[in-house]
C-alpha cells in the first residue's frame, strides 16, 4: 500500500485524502507552478508587444523598431508555447503517477477483501471504481488544477489592473464575482448528486452487460436474446435519462454564467459610457479598460464547468474511498515468521453465521480433530455447510464462535499468506485465468515473491502434477498441448477438464493441507478412481479434506464427517459408519442402488479393463 487508510482519514476532505497519493510528486507540482507563472508573464507580454507595434511603429513611425518587435513577438509566443507545453506535460505526469499509486492501492486492497465482500459486490461496480472513477480523479489532478488556477489568476489580475484604470468601474465588475460564485456553487451542489447517480447507473449498466456476456450460453439456450435486450434497454435508457438530468441542470445555470459574462460588457459600455459622458473618465481609459475584459470573460464562463469537474472528482473520490475503507472481516495479523504448517487441524466448538444473516447459523458447534497426514471425508446435503467448513480452515471466514486451530495455533493468529500458501483449496467453481494450460497450473507452483517464470525443470513438474490430477492425457491430446490458451473461467473446456486442471494447480502448490471441495464431481468415474489412486500414492504427509457426494470418493478416509444443517450428525470411519446403520449407511445404500440402476448386476465380472477406450 502506498497510503495506509487510517481511521482518521475517513473524516478528511477529499483533497486531504488524495494528497498523500500526490505527495511523492510534489516537486513536479512546484516546477509546474513555476513554469505556469513564467508562462503567465509571457501571456501578458504578447498584447503589450502588439500595442507597441501599433503605438510606436505605426503611430509614431519608428520603423527601425518594427523587426525587433516582431521578432520579440515570435520569440515570446515560442517561449509561451514551450512553457505551457512543459507544465502541461509535468501535470499530466503528476496525474498519471498519482493515480498509478491510487489504483495500485485499490488493487492491493481488493485482494485483501474476503469472500463476503465479493459475494455481495458486483464485478461491474468494482470495475467502474478502478477505471472510470480513477480517471475522473486523473482528469482533476492533471487538468482541472491548472485551468482552475489559470481562471483565478486571470480574473483577479484583470480586476487588479482595472482598479488602477478606474476603480468605480472595476468595483462594479468585481460585484459580479460573488454572483458568479453563488450560481456556480448552486449548480455544482445540484450536479454532485447527479454525477453520483450517473456513475452508479453506469456501474449497473456495466454489471448487466457483464452478466450477459458471462451467461451467454444460458441466454442462447433459452433464446432469451430479446428479453436480455429489453433489460439492456432499461439500463441504457436509465443512463441516458441521468445524463439528460445533468444536461438540464447545466442548462439551468450555465446560460446565467454566460449571460453574466456578456453583461460585464454591458456594464462596462453603459456605465463606462455614462462616466465618460459625465466627464469623470477619459475615452482612452475606457478603451484600455475594455481591452482587459477578455481576461475576466473566460473565467466567468468556465466557472460552472470547472466546478462541475470538481463535483465529478468528489463523487468518484467517495466511491474509491468506500472501496479503500472496507475492513476485511478476516484481518491480517502481524506475526513473526513461523515454521511451515504441519497439517494438524482442530475445530473447537465452531459456529458460523454470515454477518448479513446472523440468525441462520451455517455451522453450529463443530468439534473435531485431524492429525497431520490424515484424510477427512465430508458428506452432506446441498447447503449443509460443507464448503463453509473448509473455508474456515483457509481462513476465508472467521468463526462466529469457537476456534479453528492449525498446528495447535489459532488460525486467526497465523499470517494469512503463510496459512493460505500452505492450504490449497480446490473449489466447486473452478476459475482459470486466460493463460496457457501450463501457465494456469504453474500459477500454483510459483513461490510467492519469485518473479521468474517456470523453467524447463518446472515444466516436468507441471506435467507430473497434471498426470496426478488425471489431466495430462487430455491436455496432450489438444492441438497445442500445454500451450493451449484457455479463456476466463476456462470456457471451452468441459466441467471435468476444468476441475482436473484446478486440482493440478492446487497440487503444484505442494500444500500441507489439501482441500477438495467437490473437485471431481464432473469427472467420470474411471478417471476419478484413477485420481484417487494417484492421490493415495503421493499423499502421505498431506492432510486432505475431501468434500464429495459419492461415497466412493471418501470411503477410504480416516475420518468421515456427515453434516446436516451445519451440524455433525455422524462421524467415524467408513466401516464404523456403515455398521452404525445411520444416515451414512442410508446414503450409501441409496447410492449403490442409484448407481447400479435397477440393481441388476451382470453375473460375472472380474475384468478390470477400466482404461480401455478412454483418452
Amino acid at each position, binding site marked *: 500500500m502506498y497510503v495506509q487508510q487510517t481511521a482518521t482519514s475517513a473524516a478528511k476532505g477529499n483533497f486531504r485524502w488524495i494528497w498523500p497519493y500526490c505527495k511523492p510528486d510534489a516537486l513536479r507540482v512546484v516546477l509546474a507552478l513555476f513554469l505556469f507563472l513564467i508562462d503567465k508573464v509571457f501571456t501578458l507580454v504578447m498584447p503589450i508587444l502588439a500595442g507597441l507595434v501599433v503605438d510606436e511603429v505605426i503611430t509614431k513611425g519608428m520603423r527601425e523598431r518594427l523587426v525587433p518587435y516582431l521578432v520579440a513577438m515570435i520569440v515570446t509566443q515560442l517561449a509561451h508555447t514551450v512553457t505551457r507545453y512543459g507544465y502541461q*506535460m509535468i501535470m499530466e505526469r503528476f496525474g498519471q503517477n498519482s493515480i498509478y499509486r491510487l489504483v*495500485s492501492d485499490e488493487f492491493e486492497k481488493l485482494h*485483501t477483501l474476503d469472500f463476503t465482500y465479493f459475494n455481495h459486490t458486483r464485478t461491474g461496480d468494482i470495475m467502474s471504481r478502478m477505471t472510470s472513477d480513477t480517471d475522473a480523479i486523473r482528469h482533476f489532478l492533471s487538468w482541472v488544477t491548472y485551468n482552475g488556477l489559470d481562471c483565478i489568476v486571470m480574473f483577479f489580475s484583470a480586476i487588479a489592473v482595472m482598479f488602477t484604470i478606474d476603480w468605480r468601474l472595476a468595483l462594479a465588475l468585481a460585484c459580479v464575482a460573488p454572483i458568479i460564485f453563488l450560481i456556480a456553487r448552486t449548480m455544482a451542489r445540484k450536479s454532485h448528486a447527479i454525477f453520483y447517480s450517473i456513475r452508479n447507473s453506469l456501474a449497473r449498466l456495466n454489471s448487466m452487460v457483464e452478466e450477459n456476456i458471462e451467461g451467454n450460453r444460458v441466454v442462447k439456450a433459452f433464446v432469451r436474446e430479446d428479453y436480455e*435486450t429489453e433489460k439492456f434497454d432499461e439500463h441504457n435508457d436509465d443512463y441516458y435519462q441521468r*445524463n439528460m438530468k445533468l444536461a438540464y441542470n447545466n442548462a439551468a445555470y450555465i446560460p446565467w454564467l454566460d449571460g453574466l459574462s456578456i453583461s460585464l460588457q454591458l456594464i462596462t459600455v453603459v456605465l463606462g459610457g455614462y462616466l465618460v459622458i459625465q466627464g469623470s473618465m477619459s475615452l482612452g481609459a475606457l478603451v484600455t479598460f475594455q481591452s482587459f475584459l477578455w481576461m475576466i470573460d473566460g473565467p466567468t464562463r468556465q466557472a460552472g464547468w470547472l466546478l462541475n469537474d470538481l463535483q465529478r472528482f468528489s463523487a468518484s473520490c467517495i466511491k474509491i474511498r468506500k472501496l479503500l475503507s472496507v475492513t476485511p472481516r478476516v484481518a491480517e495479523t502481524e506475526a513473526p515468521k513461523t515454521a511451515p504448517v504441519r497439517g494438524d487441524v482442530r475445530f473447537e466448538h465452531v459456529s458460523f453465521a454470515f454477518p448479513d444473516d446472523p440468525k441462520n447459523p451455517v455451522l453450529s458447534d463443530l468439534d473435531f480433530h485431524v492429525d497431520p497426514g490424515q484424510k477427512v471425508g465430508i458428506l452432506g446435503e446441498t447447503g449443509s455447510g460443507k464448503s463453509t467448513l473448509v473455508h474456515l480452515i483457509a481462513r476465508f471466514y472467521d468463526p462466529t464462535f469457537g476456534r479453528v486451530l492449525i498446528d495447535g495455533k489459532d488460525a486467526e493468529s497465523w499470517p494469512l499468506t503463510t496459512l493460505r500458501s500452505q492450504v490449497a483449496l480446490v473449489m466447486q467453481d473452478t476459475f482459470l485465468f486466460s493463460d496457457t494450460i501450463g501457465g494456469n497450473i504453474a500459477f500454483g507452483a510459483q513461490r510467492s515473491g519469485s518473479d521468474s517464470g517456470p523453467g524447463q525443470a518446472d515444466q516436468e513438474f507441471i506435467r507430473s502434477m497434471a498426470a496426478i490430477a488425471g489431466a495430462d492425457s487430455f491436455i496432450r491430446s489438444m492441438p497445442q498441448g500445454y500451450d493451449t490458451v484457455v479463456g476466463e473461467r476456462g470456457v471451452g473446456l468441459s466441467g471435468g477438464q476444468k476441475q482436473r486442471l484446478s486440482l493440478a494447480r492446487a497440487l503444484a502448490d505442494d500444500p500441507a493441507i489439501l482441500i477438495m471441495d467437490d473437485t471431481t464431481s464432473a469427472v467420470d468415474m474411471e478417471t476419478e478412481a484413477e485420481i484417487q489412486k494417484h492421490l493415495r500414492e503421493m499423499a502421505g504427509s498431506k492432510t486432505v479434506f475431501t468434500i464429495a457426494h459419492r461415497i466412493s470418493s471418501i470411503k477410504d478416509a480416516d475420518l468421515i464427517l456427515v453434516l446436516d444443517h451445519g451440524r455433525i450428525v455422524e462421524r467415524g470411519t467408513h466401516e464404523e459408519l456403515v455398521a452404525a446403520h445411520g444416515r451414512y449407511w442410508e446414503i450409501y445404500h441409496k447410492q449403490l442402488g442409484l448407481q447400479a440402476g435397477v440393481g441388476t448386476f451382470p453375473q460375472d465380472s472380474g475384468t478390470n479393463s477400466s482404461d480401455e477406450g478412454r483418452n
Partner: protein
Amino acid sequence: MAWKKRTRSEARRAQEAQAAQKNAQPQQRNTFREDEELEEELNIHDITRIAAYLKPYLRRVAKILAAVLLMSLCAIAVPYMSKVVIDTVIPQKSMWGLVWLAVTFAVIIVVYEVCLRYRTVEIMRVGQLMLKDMRRDIFTHIQTLPFSYFDSRPHGKILIRVVNYVNTLSDTLSSGLIGVISDIFTFIMTLVIMFVIDWRMSLWSLVLFPILLVWVRILQHFQRIAYQRLSNKQSNLNAYIHESIAGVKTTQTFAREQTQYETFQEQQGSVRWHWMHAVHIQFLMWPGVQNISTMTVALIYYIGITHFAGVNVSTGVLIAFIAYLNNFWNPVINIGNFYNQLITCSAYLERIFETLDVKPDIVDAPDAVELPPVAGKVDFDNVVFRYEPGGRNILNLVDLHAKPGQSVALVGPTGAGKTTIISLLSRFYDVSEGSVSVDDHDVRGVTLNSLRRQMGVMLQDTFVFTGTIRENIRYGKLDASDAEIEAAARAVDADQFIREMPAGYDTVVEERGATLSAGQRQLIAFARVMLADPRILILDEATSAIDTRTEEALQNGIRKLLRGRTSFVIAHRLSTIENSDEIFYIDRGQIMEHGTHAELLAQRGAYWRLYESQYAMLKVESEELGKQA
C-alpha cells in the same frame, strides 16, 4: 472558446479509453497480454458509418445549428455595439443612445440565453441518443454471436466495447461535431471578409498555412499510432483488472496476491508510458498552430507597414485585418483540435465497428420458416462436421434417429464429439455434410428462434443471474405465474431448499449465484428448464455435483421431465442412462455402437467394457455392504 475546445479533447480522453483486438480468429485465443494489429489510415468508411447514427437526429441537429448561428450573431453584435458606444454615442454625449443601447444589449443577452439553454440540452440529447443507439446496436449484435466469440477472448475486452468506449465518443459526437460545423462557418466567413478587405494581404496571410498542414499531417501520423497503442494497452489493463476481480478467490486461495500485483503494476506502468507518449504528441498540435499564427501576424505587420511587394494599405485597414486574422486562427485551432479528437476516437471507433462487423456464423436462412410446434422426431442423416473446411472431421458420418418421446443417451470418452452432436441439434453449429432435421424440417431451413425455443438445454455450467430465485426460474418462461414457478420447482424437488432460504422464492441471488452451492444452482436450473416445457430436452452431464438425496429426488424429477419428450442425455455414469430407449456409444466422432442397454451388453463391445469397469468398482462396494449388513 479555446478553453471549451480543450475541455472536449480532454474529456474525450477522460472517458476512459479502451480498445480491443483486431481480426481475432475464433481459434486464436486472446489473453490480456496480447496486443492487436495497427491500422494506419483514418477510414472514411468509419466516418460515413458514424454519420448514419446522426441521421435520425438531423432535424434536431439543424435546430441546434440554427441556435448556434443565432448565438454567433449575438456574439458578433456585442463588440460591434461596444464600438458604436465608443465611436458614436460617447462623442455625441447621447444619454438616450446609451439607454437604447442598454436595452438592445439586454435583448441580445436574453436571446443568447435562450439559445444557449436550448443548445446545452439539445447537444447533450443528440449525443447521448446516438451513443444509446450505438450501445444498443453492439449489444444486440453480440447476442447473435456464437459461443466461440465469447470463448476466444477475455470478457473484459468485450465489456468495454459495449460500454466504456462508446462513451469515449460522447463529446466528439455531440459538442465537437456541432462546434466544428459552426467553426467551419466562421472560418469561411472570415476568409471571405479578409479577401474583401484586401486580397493581396489575404494571400500573404495564407503563406504559412501549408506549413501548418504539414505539421498537422505529421503529428496525425504519430498521434494515431500512439493512440492505437495506448488503447491496446488500456484494453489489456482492463481485461486484466476484470480477470483479477473474477479470479480474486483463486488468487487468495493460492496466496498469490504479490505476483498478481506485480503483473498489474507492469500493465499499469505500460499504460502510463503510452499515455505520456500519446499526450506528448497531442500537446504538440497546439504550439504548432499558435506559433504559425503569430508568425503570420508578424508577417502581415511587416508587409503592411513596409509596403512589401507593393502591398499598400492604410493603418486602419491593417489593424482591422489583424483583428480578423485572429478570428481566422481561432476556428483553425478549434478545427485542429477536433481533428485531433477524431483521430483519437477513431482508434476506438474502429474497434466498435469491428465488433459490429463480426458476422455470426449461424444466421437464419433468407427463406427460413417458423418451425411449427414439433412432436420431437429428430434425424441426423450421415452428418459430417468440421470446424473449418479441410480441417479434421470432428464428427464423421453420424446417423442417428429418434422418434418423438424417445430418450437417447450418448456415451463415450471425453472429446469424442458428444457435445458437438447436441450443439448441431440446437444449431449452434452447422453441419458440414449431411443434415439434421427435427420433425422432417431441416434445422437450417427454420428460424433459430423457433427451433431453440422448442428445446431445453441443461449445461454443465449452471449460470444464475443476479436477482431473486423466482426471477431466475422465470427465465424459462417469461410469462409464468408464481404458481407455475413453484410447481416447476416442486417437480424437480427444488421447492424445499428454496423455502428454507431466508426470503424463500424472493431470496436475492448475488452475481453468478455466489451465495448458493453448486447443487442448489443446479436445482434452480432444472426448475428453469421444467418451466420452459420444451419438446426436446438436452442434458449435457447436468447432474454431476448433487448429493445423493437430492440426486435421487432429481432423478425422479428428470423422469417426469423426460416423459413425453424427446431427450438427449450425455452422462458419465451409466446407471443414469440404462433405461434410455437407445444408447449411442461415440468415439472419435463416430457412432461405434448403438442399441438398448441390454443389446449393447450382449454385444460385448466398448459399452460393455465401460459398464464392466464401472460395475467392478460398484461391486466391490456392494460386497462390502453385503458383508457389513
